[in-house]
Protein backbone atom coordinates (compact mmCIF):
# COMPACT_ATOMS: atom_id res chain seq x y z
CA UNK A 1 0.00 0.00 0.00
CA UNK A 2 2.76 2.42 1.03
CA UNK A 3 4.61 1.55 -2.18
CA UNK A 4 1.54 2.65 -4.18
CA UNK A 5 1.41 5.94 -2.27
CA UNK A 6 5.10 6.56 -3.00
CA UNK A 7 4.51 5.71 -6.68
CA UNK A 8 1.53 8.09 -6.78
CA UNK A 9 3.60 10.86 -5.19
CA UNK A 10 6.41 10.22 -7.66
CA UNK A 11 3.95 10.44 -10.57
CA UNK A 12 2.73 13.75 -9.18
CA UNK A 13 6.21 15.19 -8.76
CA UNK A 14 7.74 14.11 -12.07
CA UNK A 15 5.80 16.71 -14.14
CA UNK A 16 6.72 19.36 -11.58
CA UNK A 17 10.38 18.36 -11.88
CA UNK A 18 10.09 18.69 -15.66
CA UNK A 19 8.59 22.15 -15.31
CA UNK A 20 11.47 23.15 -13.09
CA UNK A 21 13.96 21.86 -15.68
CA UNK A 22 12.83 24.51 -18.17
CA UNK A 23 14.44 27.58 -16.53
CA UNK A 24 17.65 25.58 -16.12
CA UNK A 25 17.63 24.95 -19.86
CA UNK A 26 17.16 28.66 -20.45
CA UNK A 27 19.95 29.56 -18.03
CA UNK A 28 22.24 26.99 -19.63
CA UNK A 29 21.47 28.56 -23.01
CA UNK A 30 22.28 32.02 -21.59
CA UNK A 31 25.60 30.72 -20.25
CA UNK A 32 26.50 29.10 -23.57
CA UNK A 33 25.57 32.25 -25.52
CA UNK A 34 27.78 34.29 -23.18
CA UNK A 35 30.68 31.83 -23.55
CA UNK A 36 30.49 31.38 -27.32
CA UNK A 37 29.94 35.03 -28.20
CA UNK A 38 32.81 36.11 -25.94
CA UNK A 39 35.02 33.84 -28.08
CA UNK A 40 33.76 35.59 -31.21
CA UNK A 41 31.37 32.92 -32.49
CA UNK A 42 28.24 34.09 -34.28
CA UNK A 43 25.24 33.28 -32.07
CA UNK A 44 22.76 35.73 -33.61
CA UNK A 45 20.38 32.97 -34.67
CA UNK A 46 20.34 31.45 -31.18
CA UNK A 47 19.83 34.92 -29.64
CA UNK A 48 16.78 35.39 -31.89
CA UNK A 49 15.47 31.94 -30.94
CA UNK A 50 15.82 32.66 -27.22
CA UNK A 51 14.17 36.07 -27.58
CA UNK A 52 11.27 34.41 -29.39
CA UNK A 53 11.09 31.82 -26.59
CA UNK A 54 11.08 34.56 -23.93
CA UNK A 55 8.29 36.32 -25.80
CA UNK A 56 6.28 33.08 -25.88
CA UNK A 57 6.86 32.56 -22.14
CA UNK A 58 5.44 36.03 -21.53
CA UNK A 59 2.36 35.05 -23.55
CA UNK A 60 2.04 31.85 -21.52
CA UNK A 61 2.80 29.54 -24.47
CA UNK A 62 5.09 27.34 -22.43
CA UNK A 63 5.28 24.32 -24.72
CA UNK A 64 6.22 26.31 -27.84
CA UNK A 65 8.71 28.31 -25.81
CA UNK A 66 10.28 25.13 -24.40
CA UNK A 67 10.68 23.77 -27.94
CA UNK A 68 12.49 26.93 -29.05
CA UNK A 69 14.75 26.83 -25.99
CA UNK A 70 15.58 23.19 -26.71
CA UNK A 71 16.34 24.01 -30.36
CA UNK A 72 18.60 26.90 -29.33
CA UNK A 73 20.25 24.74 -26.68
CA UNK A 74 21.00 21.90 -29.12
CA UNK A 75 22.43 24.39 -31.64
CA UNK A 76 24.53 26.01 -28.94
CA UNK A 77 25.77 22.62 -27.74
CA UNK A 78 26.92 21.72 -31.25
CA UNK A 79 28.57 25.15 -31.57
CA UNK A 80 30.32 24.49 -28.26
CA UNK A 81 31.74 21.27 -29.69
CA UNK A 82 33.16 23.28 -32.60
CA UNK A 83 34.69 25.85 -30.24
CA UNK A 84 38.24 24.34 -29.93
CA UNK A 85 38.45 23.98 -33.72
CA UNK A 86 37.09 27.52 -34.19
CA UNK A 87 39.64 28.93 -31.72
CA UNK A 88 42.49 27.09 -33.46
CA UNK A 89 41.59 28.44 -36.90
CA UNK A 90 40.90 31.93 -35.53
CA UNK A 91 44.35 32.02 -33.90
CA UNK A 92 45.93 30.46 -36.98
CA UNK A 93 44.52 33.14 -39.34
CA UNK A 94 45.44 35.87 -36.85
CA UNK A 95 49.02 34.56 -36.72
CA UNK A 96 49.10 34.34 -40.52
CA UNK A 97 47.82 37.91 -40.93
CA UNK A 98 50.34 39.31 -38.45
CA UNK A 99 53.17 37.30 -40.06
CA UNK A 100 52.18 38.58 -43.51
CA UNK A 101 52.30 42.18 -42.30
CA UNK A 102 55.53 41.65 -40.33
CA UNK A 103 57.31 40.26 -43.36
CA UNK A 104 56.65 43.43 -45.40
CA UNK A 105 59.60 45.58 -44.03
CA UNK A 106 62.34 42.94 -44.64
CA UNK A 107 60.80 42.14 -48.02
CA UNK A 108 60.74 45.84 -48.88
CA UNK A 109 64.39 46.17 -47.75
CA UNK A 110 65.44 43.30 -49.99
CA UNK A 111 63.19 43.76 -53.00
CA UNK A 112 62.72 47.53 -53.39
CA UNK A 113 66.33 48.46 -54.41
CA UNK A 114 66.37 45.60 -56.91
CA UNK A 115 63.03 46.55 -58.45
CA UNK A 116 64.07 50.19 -58.51
CA UNK A 117 67.36 49.31 -60.21
CA UNK A 118 65.59 47.10 -62.74
CA UNK A 119 63.09 49.87 -63.57
CA UNK A 120 65.86 52.47 -63.66
CA UNK A 121 67.85 50.47 -66.21
CA UNK A 122 64.71 49.53 -68.15
CA UNK A 123 63.70 53.19 -68.44
CA UNK A 124 67.14 54.00 -69.83
CA UNK A 125 67.70 50.95 -72.04
CA UNK A 126 67.57 52.99 -75.23
CA UNK A 127 70.16 55.40 -74.02
CA UNK A 128 73.33 55.43 -76.02
CA UNK A 129 76.69 55.88 -74.41
CA UNK A 130 78.75 58.39 -76.28
CA UNK A 131 82.30 59.32 -75.63
CA UNK A 132 82.73 63.02 -75.16
CA UNK A 133 86.04 64.42 -76.07
Amino acid at each position, binding site marked *: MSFRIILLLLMLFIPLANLKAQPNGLEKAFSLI*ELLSSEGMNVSRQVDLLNSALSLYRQGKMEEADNLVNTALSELTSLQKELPNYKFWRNFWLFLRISAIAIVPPA*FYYIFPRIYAYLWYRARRKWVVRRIR
Partner: protein
Amino acid sequence: MIVDDEVFAVLMAIVIVSCAIAIAMTIPRKTEPFSAIGVLNEMGKIGDYPRTVVSGSPLKLNVFIDNHEGKATAFMVLVKLGSRGNIPSNTTPLSSAPIWNYTIVLNDGGNITIPVELNLSGEGKNIAIVFELWEFNSSRWVYTGRWCHLYVNLTRGPYG
Protein backbone atom coordinates in the same frame (compact mmCIF):
# COMPACT_ATOMS: atom_id res chain seq x y z
CA MET B 1 73.26 51.92 -54.99
CA ILE B 2 70.90 53.67 -57.38
CA VAL B 3 68.42 54.64 -54.63
CA ASP B 4 69.83 57.34 -52.43
CA ASP B 5 70.60 55.95 -48.95
CA GLU B 6 68.75 58.69 -47.12
CA VAL B 7 65.68 58.37 -49.34
CA PHE B 8 65.73 54.63 -48.81
CA ALA B 9 66.00 55.08 -45.02
CA VAL B 10 62.96 57.38 -45.04
CA LEU B 11 61.00 54.88 -47.15
CA MET B 12 62.00 52.05 -44.78
CA ALA B 13 60.89 54.11 -41.79
CA ILE B 14 57.49 54.76 -43.41
CA VAL B 15 57.05 51.06 -44.21
CA ILE B 16 58.06 49.95 -40.69
CA VAL B 17 55.75 52.43 -38.96
CA SER B 18 52.84 51.53 -41.29
CA CYS B 19 53.34 47.83 -40.59
CA ALA B 20 53.54 48.42 -36.84
CA ILE B 21 50.24 50.31 -36.96
CA ALA B 22 48.68 47.58 -39.13
CA ILE B 23 49.78 44.86 -36.67
CA ALA B 24 48.44 46.87 -33.71
CA MET B 25 45.09 47.21 -35.50
CA THR B 26 45.00 43.51 -36.42
CA ILE B 27 45.47 42.24 -32.88
CA PRO B 28 42.00 42.08 -31.30
CA ARG B 29 41.63 44.42 -28.36
CA LYS B 30 39.28 44.16 -25.42
CA THR B 31 37.36 47.38 -25.16
CA GLU B 32 35.94 48.52 -21.83
CA PRO B 33 32.69 46.57 -21.46
CA PHE B 34 29.58 48.44 -20.44
CA SER B 35 25.82 48.26 -20.57
CA ALA B 36 23.29 51.03 -20.26
CA ILE B 37 19.69 51.53 -19.25
CA GLY B 38 17.51 54.57 -19.79
CA VAL B 39 13.92 55.50 -19.09
CA LEU B 40 12.01 57.14 -21.93
CA ASN B 41 8.53 58.61 -21.98
CA GLU B 42 5.50 57.05 -23.64
CA MET B 43 6.64 58.38 -27.04
CA GLY B 44 10.08 56.83 -26.57
CA LYS B 45 11.81 60.20 -26.04
CA ILE B 46 13.84 61.65 -23.19
CA GLY B 47 11.87 64.17 -21.12
CA ASP B 48 8.17 64.93 -20.57
CA TYR B 49 7.90 62.23 -17.95
CA PRO B 50 4.64 61.97 -16.04
CA ARG B 51 4.80 63.64 -12.61
CA THR B 52 1.38 62.61 -11.40
CA VAL B 53 -0.17 59.21 -11.84
CA VAL B 54 -3.77 58.34 -11.07
CA SER B 55 -4.02 55.19 -9.00
CA GLY B 56 -5.22 52.25 -11.04
CA SER B 57 -4.69 53.90 -14.42
CA PRO B 58 -1.88 52.56 -16.62
CA LEU B 59 1.44 54.38 -16.59
CA LYS B 60 3.10 54.01 -19.98
CA LEU B 61 6.86 54.39 -20.36
CA ASN B 62 9.69 52.89 -22.38
CA VAL B 63 12.97 51.39 -21.22
CA PHE B 64 16.07 51.49 -23.39
CA ILE B 65 18.82 48.89 -22.93
CA ASP B 66 22.18 48.97 -24.70
CA ASN B 67 24.73 46.17 -24.71
CA HIS B 68 28.45 46.87 -25.18
CA GLU B 69 29.76 44.02 -23.02
CA GLY B 70 31.81 42.58 -25.89
CA LYS B 71 29.54 39.53 -26.00
CA ALA B 72 25.86 38.62 -26.34
CA THR B 73 24.29 38.98 -22.90
CA ALA B 74 20.97 38.20 -21.27
CA PHE B 75 19.53 41.21 -19.46
CA MET B 76 16.65 41.51 -17.05
CA VAL B 77 14.93 44.78 -16.18
CA LEU B 78 13.28 44.82 -12.77
CA VAL B 79 10.87 47.59 -11.86
CA LYS B 80 10.61 48.25 -8.13
CA LEU B 81 8.99 50.90 -6.03
CA GLY B 82 11.07 53.06 -3.72
CA SER B 83 10.79 56.47 -2.22
CA ARG B 84 12.90 59.61 -1.82
CA GLY B 85 16.12 58.42 -0.18
CA ASN B 86 15.25 54.79 -0.77
CA ILE B 87 16.75 54.11 -4.19
CA PRO B 88 19.46 51.68 -5.33
CA SER B 89 23.18 52.44 -5.43
CA ASN B 90 25.89 51.39 -7.90
CA THR B 91 26.54 48.30 -5.81
CA THR B 92 23.28 47.46 -4.06
CA PRO B 93 19.90 46.93 -5.69
CA LEU B 94 16.68 48.01 -4.03
CA SER B 95 15.48 45.44 -1.51
CA SER B 96 11.78 45.70 -2.42
CA ALA B 97 10.08 43.06 -4.56
CA PRO B 98 9.86 43.72 -8.32
CA ILE B 99 6.45 44.71 -9.69
CA TRP B 100 7.42 44.13 -13.33
CA ASN B 101 10.24 42.36 -15.11
CA TYR B 102 11.43 41.79 -18.65
CA THR B 103 14.15 39.45 -19.88
CA ILE B 104 15.92 39.91 -23.21
CA VAL B 105 19.08 38.63 -24.88
CA LEU B 106 21.07 41.25 -26.79
CA ASN B 107 23.93 40.75 -29.22
CA ASP B 108 27.09 42.76 -28.63
CA GLY B 109 26.38 46.32 -29.74
CA GLY B 110 22.64 45.63 -29.77
CA ASN B 111 19.98 47.73 -28.11
CA ILE B 112 16.24 47.62 -27.58
CA THR B 113 13.46 49.90 -26.44
CA ILE B 114 10.87 48.02 -24.40
CA PRO B 115 7.39 49.43 -23.78
CA VAL B 116 6.42 49.30 -20.11
CA GLU B 117 2.89 49.53 -18.76
CA LEU B 118 2.59 49.75 -14.99
CA ASN B 119 -0.55 49.75 -12.90
CA LEU B 120 0.15 51.45 -9.60
CA SER B 121 -2.34 51.50 -6.80
CA GLY B 122 -2.53 53.43 -3.56
CA GLU B 123 -1.58 56.99 -2.81
CA GLY B 124 1.68 58.76 -2.06
CA LYS B 125 4.08 61.54 -2.88
CA ASN B 126 7.52 61.17 -4.45
CA ILE B 127 7.21 57.49 -5.13
CA ALA B 128 10.35 56.32 -6.93
CA ILE B 129 9.73 53.99 -9.84
CA VAL B 130 13.08 52.25 -10.05
CA PHE B 131 14.33 50.42 -13.16
CA GLU B 132 17.23 48.11 -12.32
CA LEU B 133 19.35 46.38 -14.96
CA TRP B 134 20.50 42.85 -14.17
CA GLU B 135 22.64 40.63 -16.40
CA PHE B 136 23.19 36.91 -16.59
CA ASN B 137 26.85 36.48 -15.80
CA SER B 138 28.72 33.31 -14.86
CA SER B 139 25.56 31.21 -14.48
CA ARG B 140 23.63 33.64 -12.26
CA TRP B 141 21.77 36.92 -12.40
CA VAL B 142 23.98 39.79 -11.28
CA TYR B 143 23.01 43.40 -10.61
CA THR B 144 24.94 45.56 -13.10
CA GLY B 145 24.91 48.63 -10.87
CA ARG B 146 22.95 50.50 -13.55
CA TRP B 147 19.56 51.86 -12.66
CA CYS B 148 17.16 54.72 -13.41
CA HIS B 149 14.38 56.15 -11.34
CA LEU B 150 11.42 58.39 -11.84
CA TYR B 151 9.62 60.22 -9.02
CA VAL B 152 5.85 60.38 -9.34
CA ASN B 153 2.99 61.47 -7.14
CA LEU B 154 0.35 58.79 -6.93
CA THR B 155 -3.16 60.20 -6.47
CA ARG B 156 -6.61 58.74 -6.24
CA GLY B 157 -8.80 59.24 -9.27
CA PRO B 158 -11.93 61.40 -9.28
CA TYR B 159 -14.01 58.32 -8.48
CA GLY B 160 -11.44 56.77 -6.11
